[in-house]
């Protein structure tokens, strides 16, 4: 087991809501350095809301969020930007800049944050594209000219442009064919091993949960009801978790594995 269990993100008593309704109530969660944390929950349970709140895109009603040991409420403008440069985000819908080509999208943070030569940026963009499994000519295309799966990959390439320490992935493999989804998992794993990447991955993909996630956290009724290695969640008595992992789809996957 890894000795260093430093928390890169830690969330305490978080409450987030819209109007009358609280979507997240007193939620606690830790993300440890170097791990891949899978995050599961029913549709509409607030997974994206949690990610967006940590990223500072949604206001919280109560609680604290710490990133890299710093309370995000207490950091100044500059420090906050420095922290933001250390994480990358893959939004559920890709969120590529529609008026820039894929290459320019990937180079955007490089251009803004570092003073690199155009040649190096082009080479890096091409390398990133290749890493996420896109053909080189994709670089010159506009986001509107890509398929759904290609958008996902291009968005991942953009989120990795600065070699961040943490990446937030919101359903990275949804909408990909099984082979691509498998490649995507391998890619995440390779990046984690080589770059020491910490990954927060919202996913419904049972295969991803089994093969790449070190720990899995389950969200239900606004709280994290269980967190730990997938095996411990599989054994949980919680009815929702039972249904999630031992429902028809979960079962077929498990039996497939045993063969």
């Amino acid at each position, binding site marked *: 087991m890894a*000795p260093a269990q430093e928390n890169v993100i830690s969330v305490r008593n978080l409450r987030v809501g819209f109007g009358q309704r609280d979507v997240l109530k007193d939620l606690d969660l830790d993300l440890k350095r170097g791990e891949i944390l899978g995050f599961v929950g029913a549709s509409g349970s607030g997974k994206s809301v949690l990610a967006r709140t940590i990223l500072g895109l949604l206001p919280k009603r109560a609680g604290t969020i710490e990133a890299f040991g710093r309370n995000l409420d207490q950091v100044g403008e500059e420090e906050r930007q420095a922290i933001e440069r250390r994480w990358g985000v893959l939004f559920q819908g890709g969120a590529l800049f529609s008026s820039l080509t894929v290459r320019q999208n990937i180079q955007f943070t490089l251009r803004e944050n570092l003073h*690199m*030569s155009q040649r190096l940026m082009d080479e*890096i963009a091409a390398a990133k594209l290749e*890493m996420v499994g896109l053909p080189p000519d994709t670089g010159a295309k*506009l986001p509107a000219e890509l398929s759904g799966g290609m958008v996902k990959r291009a968005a991942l390439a953009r989120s990795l442009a600065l070699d961040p320490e943490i990446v937030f992935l919101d359903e990275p493999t949804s909408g990909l064919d099984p082979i691509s989804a498998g490649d995507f998992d391998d890619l995440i794993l390779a990046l984690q091993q*080589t770059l020491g990447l910490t990954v927060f991955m919202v996913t419904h993909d049972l295969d991803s949960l089994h*093969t790449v996630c070190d720990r899995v956290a389950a969200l239900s009724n606004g709280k994290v009801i269980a967190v730990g290695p997938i095996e411990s969640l599989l054994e949980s008595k919680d009815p929702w978790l039972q249904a999630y992992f031992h429902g028809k789809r979960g079962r077929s996957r498990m039996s497939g594995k045993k063969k």
Partner: protein
Amino acid sequence: MTSGKARLKSLPFGVGANSVGVEPVFLQSELRGKKLVLSARGDWVAAHANEIEPQVESALKKQTRVDQIEIDASKVKRVDTIGAWLIERLKRNWESGGAKAAIVGLDPRYKVLLDEVAASNRQPPVPPKRETPLADTLAYIGMSAAESWVDLKALMQFLGHVMVAAGRVLMRPWSFRFTSVVNQIDRVGFRAVPIIVLIMFLIGAILAQQGIFHFRRFGAETYVVDMVGILVLREVGVLIVSIMIAGRSGSAYTAELGSMKMREEIDALRVMGFDPVEVLILPRLIALIIAMPLLTFIGSMSGLFGGGLVTWLYGGMPPEVFIERLRDAISRSTFEVGMIKAPFMAFVIGLIACVEGLRVAGSAESLGEHTTASVVKAIFLVIVLDGLFAIFFAGIDM
């Protein structure tokens, strides 16, 4: 369980690139016998890329005739994708010169990363061909000319489509989207009243003030009433209202339809068996055609009021005299000419706005482009149309 569990976790990563001091020398070359040894050191990470790259390039420039190169990376502390690529670039450049290059001493945990970048960028993409500025300009002019033909065709095609949809609604009047029309009238008509009233009031006042100021020299101040009356009712009222509406509502139509187009909402309507022209465009056009004459009327009255107020306060002509003179100066046809034009202007503005909205493609930039185009074209066509009407009314003595 799976291969995923066996991995390196105890990586001694500091809390970010910033915590390490700047090391100016990243690469040193040294000739050892027939072998060139390049020793890399420090953090080969994105934050230092702009210092590392020149050193890599200058090491390559000093290319002496050696056929064995060793890249010693044992002193490299950290590597990220950008650093790995620069090492790879170094190696690749020597190899392309026919030499043998090897990387030694690199921390084994970076092997996967290096292999990953080694596989990439094998064929650098050809940069797009650049034309000379003159050729570019000529090409641009040519394309714009061709574009205007395409524009005209699109407009005509769309007009046809609207007519067909209108015909269909006439055959089945119960399918007419009455609520939608009322909603649109509220947006483009009712809510535009304050700004139209204000603008036309000011225009009327300015016209009267200028008239009084200049006519006074000839002692012809009373003709100000004729000028303001005819100008506001016949020309300025409908023109200003058209321009305001093109900017206010035409642009809104284009932006709405354009963003619906971008998010495939229009395609969704179509596959559900609805005609987007009938559902989205006809109500908007009809609302504009109904609202515009009303706005023109309100605007003209406000203009006359502004003119009257100025002739009274600034020109010293009592309101009764102003109204008396106005009655003599204008006839019913003066008023009619302005009002007849209004629905035609509305139709042109609405048509252009909707065509441009439906031509939005993919990007946010395209949405902006078409919204601008919608306003510019609508105003241009409104003025052209006004000229044609002037010729027509002169021809029929109105």
